[in-house]
């Protein structure tokens, strides 16, 4: 039997998925979590369970939930089910350890298939998300085969503060986390991010993070 927990702030989504899961012969619904803390306490230590996780929870982000579960050791397999189509969320959740990623425009059938895939040790991504991951992989593969770019090129383009922000973006931190680390406001972080995106001539945060890696800002000894 596949044990499933659903963490979503929308009650109807929880109810509907509970009903769909209960109607499947090979699945059992363990319970619904309204927020991230509930999801963590319900799913913690349940290795064989699949956690269907919304990214936009009331008290924390889905990525924080995945990271917390991972830090506690062997946890459930996480299938992200989100309404927001953001590449940042996709890459951050996969980097944190999610094995599946679906958007809420998917059919319930696909959610059930994804739950089965995760249970059997396979990954499952939404078709658009697969394309994003593929593009990103190809980009990073091309970049990783070329030597690191000279970091002094960056200093000509960005201010020291923007370089610090870029480095943290490269490490996968969100704006609130960067604000906390650099002791500045979130609005200031946003300004730095928009400036560095423009100066690096890139359109997304992920592209900026890739640049951070290319320029050697995200080496593990940093």
């Amino acid at each position: 039997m596949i044990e499933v927990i659903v963490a979503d702030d929308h009650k109807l989504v929880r109810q509907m998925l509970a009903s769909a899961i209960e109607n499947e012969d090979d699945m059992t619904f363990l319970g619904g979590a309204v927020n991230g803390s509930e999801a963590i306490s319900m799913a913690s230590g349940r290795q064989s369970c699949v956690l269907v996780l919304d990214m936009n929870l009331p008290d924390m982000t889905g990525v924080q939930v995945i990271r917390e579960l991972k830090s506690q050791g062997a946890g459930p397999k996480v299938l992200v089910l989100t309404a927001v189509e953001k590449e940042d969320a996709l890459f951050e959740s996969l980097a944190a350890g999610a094995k599946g990623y679906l958007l809420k425009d998917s059919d319930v059938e696909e959610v059930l298939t994804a739950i089965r895939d995760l249970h059997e040790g396979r990954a499952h991504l939404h078709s658009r998300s697969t394309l994003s991951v593929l593009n990103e992989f190809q980009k990073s593969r091309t970049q990783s085969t070329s030597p690191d770019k000279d970091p002094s090129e960056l200093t000509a383009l960005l201010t020291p503060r923007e370089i610090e922000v870029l480095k943290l973006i490269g490490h996968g931190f969100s704006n609130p986390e960067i604000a906390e680390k650099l002791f500045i406001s979130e609005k200031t972080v946003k300004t730095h991010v928009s400036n560095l995106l423009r100066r690096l001539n890139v359109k997304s945060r992920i592209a900026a993070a890739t640049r951070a890696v290319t320029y050697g800002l995200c080496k593990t000894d940093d």
Partner: protein
Amino acid sequence: MLVSMDLETRLGLPNWIENLLIGRLTKGQKTIWLAVLLGMLLLVPGVDYHIGRESFHVNLYPFPIMLSIFLFGRLGLVSILVLLSLYHVVQVRLGMEGQAVLINNLAQFFLTLVIGLVCTSLVDAYRALYEGERDLAESRNELLMTLTHELRSPLFAIRGIVRNLSRNIDKLSAEQVQVKLNEAQAAIASINRDVEGLSQVFRVDLQKIEPQLQDVPASQLAQEVLKRHQPEFHPDHELVVDIQADCLVRCDPLLTQQLLDNLVLNSLRHTERGKVVLSTQLSGEEVKLTVTDEGAGIPTEDRERIFLRYDRGSRLTGEAGFGVGLYLVKIYCKAQDGRVELEDTPVGTRFAVYLKKGGESE
């Protein structure tokens, strides 16, 4: 990424000029502009043109000053004026310029100072406009993200409920089918409420609210809210009306019902299960209408901003919605010379609306 700032600049000039105007230059660009500034300074005090017998002197003050303002703001203006003054004083001291030229240059100096100040104001205004537009773009993107999230989730639920129904219709009793249909209707009602709330905000933004004040019994207002409430959509909640004191309220009944509806729906949204109590009581010369729930309550750090437009707070439970419901409550209260307050309560949340008592001669 939606929030990435790829804002079109306003004047359609090349990027290297737009960056100078908005004061966001890279180090390389700044070095080039500094070199240009130095070049301009070398041309000061100007160029003499000779056409026939006539001689024209063109003073180039405004150009380095404008560039200096673009690069360094007010400090640029002051520095360059000081530098130019020193230059002329040295020129006179060395006997390279006569007094008459100095007076002429001084006159031009003050004229340039005025131009410089005007230019500084224009640069400030342009940069403020740019910043404003960037903030607006960010807010718009955030709003669109919120709309996407808050609409996609109930739509996903509706599609799922219909799918579950059609797959299991033979196995379900008529009662169970009705429950599922109610769930779907509740999801549709949720979307409807969000969209209606948003359209009310747009209306409020577009036009001034003109409340039609009249005396309405407080109990009638509360009962109307109860009548509109659809208990079948909220099987885990109980809405209770508690008339502690009935009296006339001086209000616009439509606005008051809408604001009470918003408060009740807000409570239902943020209470997993339990009671929501709408009560009416007298409080001096005012009527106090309260909505109390047994939900998770509002964190202290959110209390200041829950009435802000599009603020969705750091919730503990429940759906966020578009973050317009409580904003509208505040606006509708204010339009009727009333107020709304968040009161302390041991469990859950209590909103208190104070409106003027009716039945008194003006």
